């Protein structure tokens, strides 16, 4: 639990630093941003693996624990984002795919070594098919929470969208990717009717931050 909290704190800190590095004189520093994204990635892996360890002894129990919904939504969001942007992006295999695969393999529930993209899709579909609706809080519920939250997610989304031209010249992909992904997140329609969030409600800051951070990790590496 401590590990999770620490990892989350570092993730949030990294996002904050990355956001503020855009405001610095001289523009975005590629090396600094790369290092921040590396830390964020490590923090995320640590966070997820710590969650998996917490999940393991409870895998047979009914999923009342908040760790479940937290575990699944990141994958779901990524898959949604993936499909939303698949047509826009180059079809070349993204490095995040191969990085997802080891994380997937860590989870005993999904231990079959399948191609990353396929495994992601299968995971989300298996969730939809097999699990309770309560396992997977809908995207809409999550998005509503995120919009309520006054924290960095909406702020960052707002501020990152207006000046695409700012990032355009130096890192042409960043602006496009950020725009697409944020608009994808905010505009995509919910797949399932809104369901009541699980009993042990995570702090509003946590779950939206998860999806936000996942997306941000990808997009930071993108530029």
């Amino acid at each position, binding site marked *: 639990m401590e590990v999770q909290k620490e990892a989350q704190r*570092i993730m949030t800190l990294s996002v904050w630093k990355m956001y503020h590095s855009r405001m610095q004189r001289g523009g975005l520093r590629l090396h600094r941003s790369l*290092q921040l994204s590396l*830390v964020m990635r490590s923090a995320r892996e640590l966070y997820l693996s710590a969650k998996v360890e917490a999940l393991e002894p409870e895998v047979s129990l009914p999923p009342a624990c908040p760790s479940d919904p937290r575990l699944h939504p990141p994958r779901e969001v990524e898959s949604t984002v993936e499909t939303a942007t698949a047509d826009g992006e180059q079809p070349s295999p993204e490095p995040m795919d191969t990085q997802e695969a080891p994380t997937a393999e860590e989870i005993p529930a999904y231990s079959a070594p399948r191609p990353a993209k396929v495994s992601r899709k299968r995971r989300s579909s298996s969730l939809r098919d097999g699990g309770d609706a309560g396992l997977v809080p809908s995207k809409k519920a999550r998005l509503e929470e995120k919009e309520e939250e006054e924290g960095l997610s909406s702020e960052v989304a707002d501020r990152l969208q207006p000046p695409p031209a*700012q990032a355009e*010249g*130096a890192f042409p992909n960043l602006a496009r990717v950020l725009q697409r992904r944020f608009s994808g997140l905010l505009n995509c329609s919910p797949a399932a009717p809104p369901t009541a969030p699980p009993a042990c409600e995570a702090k509003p800051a946590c779950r939206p931050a998860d999806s936000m951070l996942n997306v941000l990790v990808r997009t930071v590496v993108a530029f």
Partner: protein
Amino acid sequence: MKCFSRYLPYIFRPANTILSSSCHTEANVLPSGLLPSGQNKLGPWCSPTGSPAPLSCETGCGEGSWILVCRLLVPTQVSLLSMEEDIDTRKINNSFLRDHSYATEADIISTVEFNHTGELLATGDKGGRVVIFQREQESKNQIHRRGEYNVYSTFQSHEPEFDYLKSLEIEEKINKIRWLPQQNAAYFLLSTNDKTVKLWKVSERDKRPEGYNLKDEEGRLRDPATITTLRVPVLRPMDLMVEATPRRVFANAHTYHINSISVNSDYETYMSADDLRINLWNFEITNQSFNIVDIKPANMEELTEVITAAEFHPHHCNTFVYSSSKGTIRLCDMRASALCDRHTKFFEEPEDPSNRSFFSEIISSISDVKFSHSGRYIMTRDYLTVKVWDLNMENRPIETYQVHDYLRSKLCSLYENDCIFDKFECVWNGSDSVIMTGSYNNFFRMFDRNTKRDVTLEASRENSKPRAILKPRKVCVGGKRRKDEISVDSLDFSKKILHTAWHPSENIIAVAATNNLYIFQDKVN
């Protein structure tokens, strides 16, 4: 030897204007540091005033003691001090909208470099200025003043720019200065900010023509009707003037931020390296450069490492090395192909799994790489260590020195306060027997490669009393702190020594601590 400190208030004038006057000569300085007949007092630059008396300190490096030669302040502070003297000076200073805090930020020294003889020492700062110091000449009656450096020239090298196309501000901070070897009476140096490299010529003038026919003494045109006789202009001696002129501007070749420049041993070419590319320039050609290394991936999402430093081999003009953010060094031979994406040698040390931590990737990033003077070794600096590599052995360094290993457990806090991203430099001494690098709390470390002894010294004026022996400093890591030790938690992380330089042949070092430049000398000398 004249003192050039009086022209420091004129630093904001265009670079190619005359920059000098003299406020005193050696002969007329009284022991109290004042000039006779109540003339203006010496500026703090001038060695008889202000700087502490020589200190001696012990080192473990087997080279004797280190003395503080002088501590030099940045120009802005000096001009503030001299404001009461001169109305003109005050006008010039007040005409710029710098408040104290901004001036302090701009005065932070960002690079230090001796020239090839060690006679000149150049510093660049965040405000885009270059200040060159010249060594005091030896004189029989002033033996104790030998080795001191006084200001020789100051000029504004780079100005802040705005890239309208990308809506990005380009910082004027001088990232690197590199001297060219001297080939005539003038001195040449390269200075670079994030995007533009400039070649500056620094030359002296001690004669001026007098007796023009069409101009009078102030340079105003004379009415031809008033000219009755003709004369031949003659060259008359004048006060020594040092002028700096930009001779070449190498611009628009880098998309990313330039982190290194290196002059080739052929003295005709040099390279500039940014995060993803290295370009080769000819000094005579400013509108073209060859791209010799390009590690930009086709898909930027696949980016995993960037170039952090690059340097040419000191003797082989076809060889250079560049370091990466992953802790690897690549040696390339330009004879192999035009684009040196394939390295000739690849230096990497396998990571110690016991040291693996959350921030391993960040602290393994190499911040500086330097060839030894012999050309046989390279030295690399990452966040916690300095490593010496033999060019003939690629799989591991031959020597590893822990600079401040006590920080290994503090990486998380250092990440929070951004100190983990600090880029420390490292230097060799002239004989490649001692290496030096900086640390926090204004500490800097020297490692003797032969005796395997090391020492930690501090560049600070608080702890230096006149004639006191400056002891080597020690950081206490355990629970029990001895009397002179400083505990890790009391280290001041805002005082960091990132830039140091070592005289090419003598034991004189220059240490930049924020906006102060300390010059230390080996007492044996």
